[in-house]
C-alpha cells in the first residue's frame, strides 16, 4: 500500500503540466527545466503553435539551433504578443521543458528579455499551451 501511495504521488506530480491537444504524447520531460541563452534565429508565427527558434552555443562553442513551442497565434495575440515581439538576432533567455529524447526541441516555460522582464510565461497564464 505504501509503495502504491508513493507511485500515486510521483504520477500526480508528473501529470500536472499539460494535456496533449496536438498529440504530443510523452514528447517533453515536464519534470526537467533547462535555461537556454542565445539569439532568436526565427519566429514561426503560425498555428497550431508558435515556434521560436534560437541559436544557442553549447559548452564546446558549437551553435545549436533550439526550437520551443508556444500557444497558438490567437491566444498569444490576446495576451498582447505579436509577430515582432521577438526579433531575429535579439538576445533572449528561454526557460523550457526539453524533449525527453534529447532533441533540441522544447516547450516554453517563460522567456526572459535582456532587461530581465519575463514574457510569454506559461506559469503566469500568458502562454496557454494546451
Amino acid at each position, binding site marked *: 500500500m505504501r509503495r502504491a501511495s508513493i507511485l500515486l504521488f510521483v504520477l500526480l506530480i508528473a*501529470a*500536472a503540466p499539460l494535456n496533449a491537444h*496536438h*498529440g504530443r504524447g510523452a514528447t517533453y520531460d515536464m519534470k526537467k527545466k533547462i535555461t537556454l541563452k542565445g539569439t532568436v534565429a526565427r519566429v514561426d508565427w503560425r498555428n497550431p503553435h508558435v515556434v521560436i527558434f534560437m541559436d544557442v552555443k553549447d559548452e564546446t562553442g558549437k551553435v545549436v539551433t533550439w526550437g520551443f513551442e508556444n500557444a497558438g497565434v490567437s491566444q498569444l495575440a490576446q495576451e498582447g504578443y505579436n509577430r515582432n515581439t521577438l526579433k531575429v538576432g535579439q538576445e533572449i533567455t528561454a526557460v523550457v521543458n526539453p524533449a525527453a529524447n534529447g532533441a533540441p*526541441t*522544447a516547450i516554453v516555460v517563460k522567456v526572459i528579455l535582456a532587461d530581465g522582464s519575463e514574457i510569454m510565461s506559461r506559469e503566469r497564464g500568458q502562454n496557454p499551451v*494546451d
Partner: protein
Amino acid sequence: MRSRWTTLVFVLMMSLTASAQQGDKEKFKARYEALPSDANFDRHDLSGIWTQTKLDHSLGTPAPPLTPAGIAAMNGRIQDKPGVVGNAPWYTCNPMGFPRLMNDDEPMEFIITRDRILQVFQWEHRIRYLWTDGRALPSGENLENLGPAWYGHSVGKWEGDKLIVNTVGLEERAWLDNAGHPKSFHARIEETWERVDSSTLENQLTLYDPEYYTAPWVGSKKIYKRMPPDAITYFGWNGLFAGISEGICAPMNEVEGYNKGFRDIGTKPR
C-alpha cells in the same frame, strides 16, 4: 487491487491535468467577467463574441453505455495518453465537426440575421448555419439524400427565452470528443441556448443516438461569457485586429510544419 490503484491514479492524473488547465483559464476570466452588467438586455439577442469559461473538450458528463454498433464505430480510435500520440482526425487538419468544435478553447461569434443564425468559430474559421425561418429539420428520404456533413444540418426555434437547435446528418468520421466517442449518421443533437444575463450564455447539448448509445447522452451546462468590446476594435485589446481571428488549421502548417518539422523531432526515438 492493482487495477483499482491504476484506475485511481488515472482518474486523479486526468483531474489534476484539467485543474492545471483550468488555472490558466481562470486568469483570463477576470477580463471578461469585469464587464458591466446591462439590465435591459434582449434575451433573444445572442449576437456577439463569446468564450467558454472552462476548458472542457467533452460533453461534460459520462457517456451512456455504447451499443455493439457503437463499440464497433469507436474501434481503432486512439486517445492521447502519456507516451502515446492519438489519432484524432484534427491532428491532420480534418474538421473537428459538431459538437467537438463547440467544445474547443477559442471564442465563437453569433451573428443574427432575419432567417438564420450564424455561428462563427475562431478555430477552423468555421461557420454553422442555424436556420430559423421555420423550415423542418431534414428527415427520412430528405436526410438520406442530403447525406452527412461535418457540421450537420441545423434548425433553430425559440421556445420562450430559449433557443432550441436540432442538428442531424452528422458525419460519422468526426469524433464527438477527445476520447473518440462516435455518433451515427441518424443521431440527433439538441442544443439549448439561453442568455441569462447581459454577458452570459448557457448552453446544453443532448445526444439522441439509439444506434450507438443505450440511452440519451445529456451533457452538462456550459457557460459562455461575452468578450470585452475592445477585443473587436481595430488593434484594440492587445493588438487584435478583429474579435474572431484566423485559427485555420492549414495542412502545410500543421502536418508539414508543426508535426513533421517540429513535434516529431522531439517525439521519435533518436
